[in-house]
């Protein structure tokens, strides 16, 4: 008796339906999460590396202005490095020898911003992203220099909290 040869069943002309129910579930959850985090603010601020913002009950959305950030190690204007900090104080090379509160590179950068971005500069607004652990002495130097450069309106950037 001859053995019957095994035959692979032909799949030609066969259709199948993909079960997308679970994928739809996943997308629905994702959509709800993204809708919750959807930002309606006109100005979007990028989080700065090594800057832990303080929490505040303020519910005001950010506005446009000169963007400054201070971490424990450096002061930046946007992405541009301006001055370095060590042990919660600015390196002496960046400070005016005649005025201990005056940060020279910051003043120069804000002066340039005044020329290049006249409309925004007229508002005199500075958006400051500063690390929560920094002492007031550091913040004061930035505020002082900014007001000298014609930016007396300081807006403190915070995160939402209690």
């Amino acid at each position, binding site marked *: 008796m001859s053995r019957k040869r095994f035959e692979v069943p032909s799949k030609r002309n066969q259709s199948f*339906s993909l079960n*997308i*129910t679970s*994928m*739809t579930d996943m*997308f*629905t959850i*994702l*959509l709800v999460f*993204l*809708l919750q*985090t*959807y*930002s309606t*603010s006109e100005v*979007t*601020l990028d*989080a700065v590396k090594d800057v832990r*913002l*303080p*929490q*505040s*009950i*303020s*519910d*005001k*959305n*950010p*506005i446009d202005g000169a963007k400054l950030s201070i971490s424990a190690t450096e002061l930046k204007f946007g992405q541009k490095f301006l001055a370095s900090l060590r042990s919660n104080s600015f390196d002496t090379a960046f400070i005016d020898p005649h005025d*201990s*509160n005056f940060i020279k590179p910051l003043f120069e950068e804000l002066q340039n911003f005044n020329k290049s971005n006249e409309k925004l500069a007229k508002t005199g607004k500075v*958006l400051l*992203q*500063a*690390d*929560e*652990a*920094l*002492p*007031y*002495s550091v*913040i*004061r130097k930035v*505020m*002082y220099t900014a*007001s000298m450069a014609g930016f007396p*309106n300081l*807006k*403190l*950037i*915070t*995160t*939402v909290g209690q």
Partner: protein
Amino acid sequence: MKKRFKLNINHNSEFDLDLAPLLAVMVKLVPVLLVSSAFVQMMIIETDLPQVVQEAIKKQDENPKSAQIAVEVSKSVGVKIIISENGSQKIEVVGFDKDKKIDYPTLQAKLVEVKKLHPEVFKIDLNPDAEIAYKDLVKIMDEARKVRAVGVRFPVKDSKTGKDTTTDYMFPEVVFSNMLDG
């Protein structure tokens, strides 16, 4: 004889819902929302106030005789609220709690008391010591800005309509008065 038409309803019938169009919409929506999502929600502290309060602040600036409130912050004492009016000075001190942090609930209570006595004042001068942490300053500004307790409101006069109204703002205008000190 005519046979009566009988509607054949199968109560156990099943059907597949076509989810493909729904999924197509979601696939398009997700990237749009991903781009415009703010995962770290940032806010700003600024004095953007109701018109009535703004007018009251203007009125206070015009009146040099109104009380001056200064808040001094130091690591040794805590928060000192100095109220100067008609040549006399009153000082309130808020110390630290068990964790050696500023006693914020007491600070808020003291500021509410001060506001009740001086409802026309909306501005405070903040004089922190050099070593005070930035997060503490933000917290003090939060406590001074608005009253937290529900139902507590302060009288303010609408100069346009002449009507008396109320607000929950206490001292929304904070001035770093020692900023120019060396």
